[in-house]
């Protein structure tokens, strides 16, 4: 286990260096597009510590959370079905690849027509982008399960839900977790994108609005907030991953021990 002090050091070290470099760079060249850290910090406090928190940030994060959870559920469920059923995969794969390549600018107006312009549409936009990493990783994880393990469960007639719950999904879980990790950051990106359509509030809307209104420091403060949310979400993910994959890390513990020694 890392000492808490070292953990903080690792987490803050590089960002501190980056901040310093930023400060030095913005000190010399006064490009309006790269305001100094102090300006951004000021903008951050002014912009986000106020009513914006409840009118913009929290609703956005709520939609993000629902969207990501839905994506994980849908991605894992569909991914398992597709990964275990050859004909289903053959049938759906080209179609899914097709939809993956359709840009949101085209997709969103259609979604708006079908779902209106409320939260449902925005959540749908988030899901439409961040199921893919979960889905693809689940499909590949499920396909790649060690044959000895599947043979074992077959011969002991561990089938159906039990086999999914205790054999297939755990075996695929390292790869599924990789997908979930991607899903989280893509979810944040799509939260922003979803607010570029038919909206007038939200964290993402604010960032785009600031950008369009040349409010550069405010825009940076929005990006900063988004990044910080990303770090926080990654922290939550880390906790979840350590629980879900404790066996996986345990198996590899010996290896890491030597790497340290």
């Amino acid at each position, binding site marked *: 286990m890392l000492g808490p002090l070292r953990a903080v050091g690792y987490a803050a070290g*590089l960002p501190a260096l980056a901040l310093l470099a930023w400060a030095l760079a913005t000190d010399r060249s006064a490009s309006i597009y790269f305001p100094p850290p102090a300006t951004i910090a000021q903008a951050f406090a002014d912009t986000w510590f106020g009513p914006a928190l409840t009118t913009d940030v929290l609703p956005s994060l709520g939609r993000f959370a629902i969207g990501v959870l839905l994506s994980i559920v849908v991605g894992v469920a569909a991914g398992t079905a597709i990964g275990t059923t050859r004909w289903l995969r053959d*049938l759906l794969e080209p179609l899914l690849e097709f939809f993956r390549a*359709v840009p949101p600018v085209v997709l969103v107006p259609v979604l708006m027509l079908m779902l209106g312009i409320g939260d449902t549409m925005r959540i749908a936009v988030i899901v439409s982008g961040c199921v893919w990493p979960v889905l693809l990783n689940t499909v590949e994880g499920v396909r790649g399960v060690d044959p000895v393990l599947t043979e074992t469960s077959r011969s002991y007639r561990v089938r159906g839900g039990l086999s999914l719950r205790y054999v297939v999904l755990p075996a695929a879980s390292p790869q599924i*977790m990789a997908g979930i990790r991607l899903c989280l950051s893509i979810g944040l990106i799509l939260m922003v994108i979803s607010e570029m359509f038919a909206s007038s509030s939200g964290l993402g809307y604010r960032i785009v609005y600031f950008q369009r209104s040349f409010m550069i420091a405010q825009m940076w403060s929005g990006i900063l907030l988004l990044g910080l949310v990303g770090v926080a979400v990654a922290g939550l993910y880390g906790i979840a991953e350590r629980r879900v994959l404790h066996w996986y890390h345990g198996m590899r513990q010996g*290896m890491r021990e030597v790497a340290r020694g």
Partner: protein
Amino acid sequence: MTAARTRVLGLLGILGFLAAWEAAALSGAVSRTYLPTASTTLARLGSELTTPDFWTTLADTVITWSAGLGIAVVAAIALGAVVGLVPFLDRATHSSVEFLRPIPSVAIIPLAVLVAGLSREAALMVVVYAPFWQVFVQVLHGVADVDPVAQDTARSYGLGRLDQLRHLVLPTALPYVITGFRLAASVALVLTITAELVIGNPGLGRQIELYRSAPDAPGLYALVLVTGGLGILVNLATRLLERRLLHWHPSVRREEAL
């Protein structure tokens, strides 16, 4: 035999979708001005395909896309492998990586334009950014997936760092990398189109925007079919590649045996 079956089923899936689309459009749930029928769109696609302009536009997009994807994938594999293998780097960069990953490409467009102008390079920066992180994270997880016994074997037989990378780490990470590549390919395509649309370089994206403003729904959806088609093509290519590179992996082995 199985290959033929795969093709037929895949085609069936697409046909089923087209039929559903046709039915939905004909049902009139959505006005046909906004959602043309599949047959109209396909006819329009056919006529688009015969114009030389279409092909130059397509070429523009494909060039930006493949260049961006190439840069993103190569850089992500290289950096991902280094960061994944050196625990110090992994720990030291973790927070920064998590900070940078959720920043949307739309947010960096003005900066890209500032640095690179309204050029293909600016579009490239936008196209590289997001897919890079996807492959990077996949590589990190792939590198961590090395079997401890296989790792012990490599160490005890004195395999150097490079040899371990080449013969142990990369093969292990390969399934993750391929999935990362597939994810990145479509994201890069979406971003190429978005960047063309927003920055205004020539390409499918700008053409889509023109058709959208005209407004010319069949033209718009014909181009959407083209982007989706590109996505399907990449996937076909990846699957072929996978059958060669991962012939030893349970996922491929199992299906070949069936």
